[in-house]
């Protein structure tokens, strides 16, 4: 399967997360790694055994997303991938964060109950003092 554009990728990623919301279990896997396929690379040599440590120019990044279905569930597998060029990284990750935040809705929301209870107590105490 070819790589998707960013717009397609985010749209389908949102679908992938939505599929998780309707069911009470399941997983979404997101992977990122350096994209080295078909890139002109300086091969490691005797003089420079770690040529990949300092590439001549920035390399793109490969982002993958899947629902982790394999083996007998292979038919239901969803695989998405996209390539992010180095100059698009910031824009991509800003949208990525947004999609992930919306998609990962089953995580524990920030717990404000304790603070609220404390605030109430303080209010009651403040109100109670002058009257007594």
């Amino acid at each position, binding site marked *: 399967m070819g790589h998707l554009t960013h717009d397609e990728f985010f749209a389908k990623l949102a679908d992938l*997360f939505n599929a*998780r919301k309707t*069911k*009470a*279990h*399941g*997983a*979404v*896997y*997101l*992977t*990122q*790694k*350096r994209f*080295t396929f078909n890139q002109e690379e300086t091969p490691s040599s005797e003089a420079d055994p*770690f040529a*990949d*440590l*300092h*590439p001549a*120019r*920035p*390399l*793109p*990044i490969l982002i993958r997303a899947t629902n*982790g279905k394999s083996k007998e569930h292979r038919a239901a597998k969803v695989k998405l991938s996209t390539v*992010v060029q*180095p100059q698009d*990284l*910031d824009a991509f*990750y800003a949208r*990525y*964060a947004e999609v*992930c*935040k919306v*998609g*990962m*809705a*089953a*995580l*524990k*929301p*920030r717990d404000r109950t304790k603070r609220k209870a404390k605030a109430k107590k303080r209010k009651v105490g403040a109100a109670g003092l002058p009257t007594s």
Partner: protein
Amino acid sequence: MPYYAKSEDWLHQSALLLQARPSTTRITTRYHIKPARRLPKPDKAGVAAPSQPEETQQQQEAKPPRGHLVLKTYDPASGVTLKYKTSKAAEVTRLVQMLGTLGRRMAGVAVETTPTTTSGGGDEVVMGEAPPVGGESEAAAGGSGAQTPTPTPAAGGQAQAVAGAGAGGGGGGGKGKKKKGKR
């Protein structure tokens, strides 16, 4: 494969690993939903909390399935695995920001120091030009940090050597971060 208690520690160690092996290391984010834990036995709950049984039980029944988030940095070449686990929604944005910081390292783009929460990984890695800030002790500290999770001593030594060679800024960044964490 260690789980780090703090996302900052995970970010720092991952940054060091990426520095050593930028083209083989990958980061996987796993978001999974499990059904909520089964309810405690009713008789036990009744004994334990006789004063407010109705309220707590209602809360437990209404408990939605809980999501979990596991970040994993894995380098198949050396077998190093670094993990961080959370279930807090408040952390998602920050964690994706961290993924972005690490993504920049993967791409080989210079990571500029940002005043945001991800400053732990914001030390500079410019190709070939290690900043002269890192002394020997700092480089060694970075190396030992990268070594801890390594299962095979041979691969660990290699990673350590590489991290030590190019980890001037990394070690320095880690030092400040670790102090913060202990406070």
